[in-house]
């Protein structure tokens, strides 16, 4: 199976409360960059689908990672190559010149050239939180989609059974490939992904795999090509523009209560909620 994984770098989501807003703009200087966690899960899922988990060094298929960004974002791609992805594509662009729709249209051009069986994407980037690229891409390609995947059972290059995490439960669908699947948190649990290569009894470690030092060195030699955004999506007009940003309204400082009795009293007489 050939899998394409779009990958975005974001400012460290654990430090999102350090986001500064100056002059109505988000200032990310001084923040650490990391791969979007959901995209890392998508890479891990792609690796699990294209290997025998008991011998993960031999790939049973191909995993291609793609990012949009300046030269520095190649670090994000190299990190994915070090965990096992085969090759990488960087589309040269500045973050401010992109929106979800433009990324989806450019990805469509890449998909048409690469012809993967599957596009595996994170369900959302944790900076813009827009949750739309995967679905837009599926529609632009005329492909079926399975969003918010918590489990995937591969039926080879033909189809996947996907357990979608929807509000209030799990919605199970079968998508016939090629398709777009976006992944949710629990896709990296030990038995969430079942490929046709890995023995059904195999349990993965929880979470995403780390690259060994040797693999990091080897990843420097893996193919990484640069493409021009204009060649992929001639119409670069953005569909969404931001006129400004502001910090959230601060919550008023609360009070500490000493006892359960005092808490109940306050909830009854002050907040009047019980």
């Amino acid at each position, binding site marked *: 199976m050939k899998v394409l994984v779009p990958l975005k770098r974001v400012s460290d989501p654990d430090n*999102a*409360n350090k986001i500064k807003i100056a002059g109505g703009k988000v200032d990310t200087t001084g923040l650490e960059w990391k791969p979007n966690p959901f995209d890392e899960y998508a890479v891990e899922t792609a690796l699990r689908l294209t290997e025998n988990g008991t011998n993960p060094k031999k790939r049973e298929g191909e995993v291609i990672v793609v990012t949009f960004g300046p030269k520095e974002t190649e670090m994000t791609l190299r990190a994915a190559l070090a965990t096992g992805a085969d090759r990488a594509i960087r589309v040269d662009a500045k973050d401010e010149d992109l929106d979800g729709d433009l990324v989806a249209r450019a990805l469509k051009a890449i998909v048409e050239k690469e012809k993967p069986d599957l596009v595996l994407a994170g369900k959302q980037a944790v900076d813009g939180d827009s949750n*739309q690229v995967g679905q837009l891409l599926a*529609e632009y390609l005329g492909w079926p989609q399975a969003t918010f995947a918590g489990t995937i059972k591969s039926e080879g290059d033909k189809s996947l059974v996907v357990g979608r995490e929807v*509000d209030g439960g*799990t919605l199970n669908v079968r998508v016939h490939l090629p*398709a777009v699947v976006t992944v949710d948190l*629990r896709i990296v649990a030990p038995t969430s992904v079942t490929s046709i290569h890995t023995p059904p009894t195999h349990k993965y470690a929880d979470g995403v795999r780390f690259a060994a030092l040797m693999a990091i060195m080897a990843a420097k030699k893996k193919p990484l090509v640069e493409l021009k955004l204009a060649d992929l999506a001639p119409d670069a007009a953005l569909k969404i523009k931001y006129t400004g940003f502001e910090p*959230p309204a601060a*919550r008023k400082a609360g009070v500490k209560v000493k006892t359960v009795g005092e808490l109940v009293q306050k909830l009854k007489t002050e907040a009047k909620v019980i």
Partner: protein
Amino acid sequence: MNILVIAELHDGSLRKSTHSAITFARQVGAPFSILVIGSGTQNAATDAAAFGAQKILVADDASLKDPLAERYAPVVAQVAKAGGFDVVAVTASSYGKDLAPRVAAKLGAGYATDISGVKNEGGKLTFKRPTYAGNAFGYAEVQTPVKLVSVRQSEFAAAEPSGGASPVEKVAIPAADPAASRVEFISLEAAKSERPDLGEARVIVSGGRALKERFAEVLDPLANLLGAAVGASRAACDAGYAPPELQVGQTGRVVAPQLYFAIGISGAIQHLAGMKSSKNIVAINKDPEAPIFQVADYGLVQDLFTAVPELITELKKG
């Protein structure tokens, strides 16, 4: 301006999230219609007719029994085009978020997700939406003539019926996309719960990893007593102490009940993003330095395993 609200259905009735999308339309202050999609939609259409919409448009067909974006998107796009709608609003739920981008792509429309506010200045709309886990709010202008939005239930109060009955009109079902033939609905495993939905609950009792295997044993009696929904932090879900559909946070459900109990929850950014809009927040945690105390209206520094049973006893006193 003309707004199309896409209803979200559950068991043939309108979900409360739909009422929030109606509130959005009322706040814009433009005429709106409501599109009801599914199979066996009579009750939902009748309910929808009481909110002052110009029309209730009904797409009812056996092929629309299960909510698949590949089947619903062509219907929404056709109705939006035929009616000349300028804004299409969906619920910011897993249903709306799955569907809306496909509609946006069909209509060549820009799509602002998870909006928490709207300004209408002489017909020019600006959408407020949270980014960076709610640590920055952006003001988005959608540049295309047709605009898609998903409306955050926690930020738009549920609309009340305004009386009257909007005319109900059946719409033609367009031919299915080729993509629709390549996706099969298998089943919906609904989480079985007698409790209110997290998005609709007045009170939520949420627990963190500190509860360990005693998650349900400790929280259920309190939730039962208060008629509350049960929520969980991502850490509690990841550790397997709570099922995934209970997760409250940036990557789970976004909630804004009247009263939110954060029990044994430290208060990671991602969790705060999902519950900070709650009207009253109570935190119970034995660590006085836990970040949750910075957003809690009432903080109790105590071991939850003694505090929660005590709280139940105290509440029962009446």
